[in-house]
């Protein structure tokens, strides 16, 4: 077995050393700003931490408080709403749009550019743009609805619609990036399969469901995981589109919004850390389940 042991020449060791040196600034940054912060965050979640002064150990009390805090449950419920509806919508739209973009159509580049545009737009710009599009009085959406003979909708201030409004913007902004990944996945599928299917007399629908989808499943899996993690951390659009002092905020805030408020408005840092640790555990658990479940539907051949 000793022959399996990796052996490097002196030259290679030297080169590896240089490589480590070059990535050192990145790695050090990662260690300090991510790894250290992550550990410190867990430590803080068992302490009472104010704006100043050293933390004092309080055991599980931040977590106990969490379970008795109705606002935490509201935030969790809202976050799950965005995730449960958002992930299938993002995945579904990105598969369909990528498939359409992969057809031989006129103006293909134009469509691809247009679809990709939201991905390179700042979330702040997207939020502010949609905030005006959805404005109750002056918004373009309501203008169209009224022209078509409908009643204007208070997208961003009616507690019943505000979550849907956020969901629309979220899906709209996320699909564009995922489409590009799906497109890459589609183009990675060998033409042989399609030719074989055509020779066997499969129609377009059959080809899509029996050839394209199974072979695209690794990409779909990747997109599902990534968009799920992203949506569970939703913050920016809520922060940008809903004013904090309105009732709509109480009906749309996510876990990260709640974390932000507790940590930076109310300065209860220990409790805020506990919220973020719980969010981390939720993401970890769901991702773990996905990785187990993938055996049954993801096709790596």
């Amino acid at each position, binding site marked *: 077995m000793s022959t399996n042991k990796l052996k490097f020449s002196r030259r290679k060791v030297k080169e590896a050393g*240089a490589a480590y*040196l070059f990535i050192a600034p990145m790695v050090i940054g990662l260690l300090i700003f991510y790894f250290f912060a992550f550990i410190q965050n867990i430590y803080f979640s068992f302490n009472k931490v104010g704006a*100043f002064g050293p933390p004092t150990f309080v055991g599980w009390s931040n977590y106990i408080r969490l379970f008795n805090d109705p606002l935490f449950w509201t935030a969790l419920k809202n976050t799950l709403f965005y995730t449960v509806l958002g992930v299938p919508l993002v995945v579904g739209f990105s598969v369909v749009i990528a498939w359409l973009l992969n057809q031989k159509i006129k103006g293909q580049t134009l469509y691809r550019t247009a679809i990709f545009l939201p991905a390179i737009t700042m979330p702040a710009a997207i939020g502010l743009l949609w905030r005006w599009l959805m404005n*109750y009085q002056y918004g373009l959406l309501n203008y169209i609805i009224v022209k078509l003979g409908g009643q204007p909708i208070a997208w*961003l201030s009616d507690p019943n619609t505000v979550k849907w409004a956020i969901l629309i913007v979220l899906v709209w902004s996320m699909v564009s990036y995922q489409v590009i990944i799906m497109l890459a996945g589609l183009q990675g599928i060998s033409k042989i399969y399609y030719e074989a299917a055509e020779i066997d007399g499969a129609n377009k629908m059959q080809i899509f469901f029996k050839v394209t989808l199974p072979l695209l499943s690794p990409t779909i899996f990747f997109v599902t995981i990534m968009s799920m993690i992203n949506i569970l951390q939703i913050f920016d659009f809520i922060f940008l589109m809903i004013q904090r002092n*309105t009732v709509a905020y109480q009906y749309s805030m996510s876990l990260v919004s709640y974390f932000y408020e507790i940590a930076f408005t109310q300065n209860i840092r220990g409790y805020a850390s506990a919220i973020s640790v719980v969010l981390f555990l939720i993401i970890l658990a769901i991702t773990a389940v996905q990785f187990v479940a993938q055996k049954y539907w993801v096709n790596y051949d």
Partner: protein
Amino acid sequence: MKKLLSILLCSFMVLSMSACSNGGNGGQSTTSGPVQISLTLWDEVQAPVIQKNIDKFNELHDGEIVATIEQVPWSNYWQKLDASLESGESADVMWMNTYLPKYVEGGVLKPLDEFIQAESYDLTQYVDARVQAFNYEGTQYCLPKGLDAVYVALNTEIFTKYNVELPKEGWTWDDMRTIAGQLRDAIEAAGGTEYPIVMELDAQPSFVNFFEQNGAVYLSEDGKKTGVAEPAGIDTIQQMVDLMDQKMMAPYTVLSETKGTDLFVSGQGAIVFIGSWKASVLDTSSLGQNGAIQLIPMPSMAVNNKSVLGGLGYAIASQTKHPEEAWELIKYLTGAEAMSVEAQNGIDFPANFEAQKEYVKSFKNIDAQVIADVTKTGFPYPTNGNFEWNTFVNDAIAMALSGQQPVEQALKDGAAKAQAVLDQLN
């Protein structure tokens, strides 16, 4: 060759990193040159004007003190301030607002009493409510820079258009309801789209004033009790809800999506409750340029028509190595000369009485004397440095104003949660 290059690059990196960490420590020079002090603030609009004042200050203390500005955007001003105070690298002088108690309790601000007593510094040159706002449990921590007052602006074009008489100073909420009712009927009859009353639903330009004016207690003076769920408090919010229900005020959906001020300057509101921080918006709006904006103090509720007074102050970090020089700087910056310059540029309403005249003169299209008058009777913003209790109260008020919950139920729930937080503070 490669090796040489990488060593070179690394040493550059190390150098630039150490240069950065030295940069934060403004005033550590031990040589006999002029003392270096720094001032941190957030407002990029005010910074150029304040820089002019700093230049003048440096000129006056040529060879002795050199002051510089470290501008940090509002979005991370407080986070950065906290971190720099904690690590002992903060600026010598900083902008401070209602967050004061948090910093006093953290022990990071220098009490100013010794300076004030040593030279019998005259605090009556400032609006008293602002001096009091920066006095925490008997100790002065800031000199007040400017202040925010709330008043009412009227769109005279709408009043003329619908032939309704303008309110006069000394008006009451009853008068306001009569006027708003007349406007509402006239607008409806003519098929207009304007609203009689609009306001911003943030605490400061609306209900914090109304509670005080209606004899209710948003937060008791000792900071230990909220009285919003007492009858006077419930009545206050109910009166706001009634205005909306009777279509005298724009509906909640409209006000929560479009700021009251924006509705007003776009000609959609006849009466707006508005803060002095928006005065320059009024002055430069086309409505203002048409001479259609008239200012008036707020109408009285059951008790009075006093305005809440917010505003900024200058505080000195207790870790500064040059307290004397820092004190000179904040005296100069809040003094008549420097604040007159700020007033002439219309960037802040001075807490310094002498400089207030310049503020009134700086507006071309509105009579800012009304704002100056309002500040004479104002009361300090009720705060105790905790921001958990008021989240419960403000959220409950939003629930009530939006009609999601009946006023009494919403306020009782909110006040109970808020009081639980307040009870734990001491």
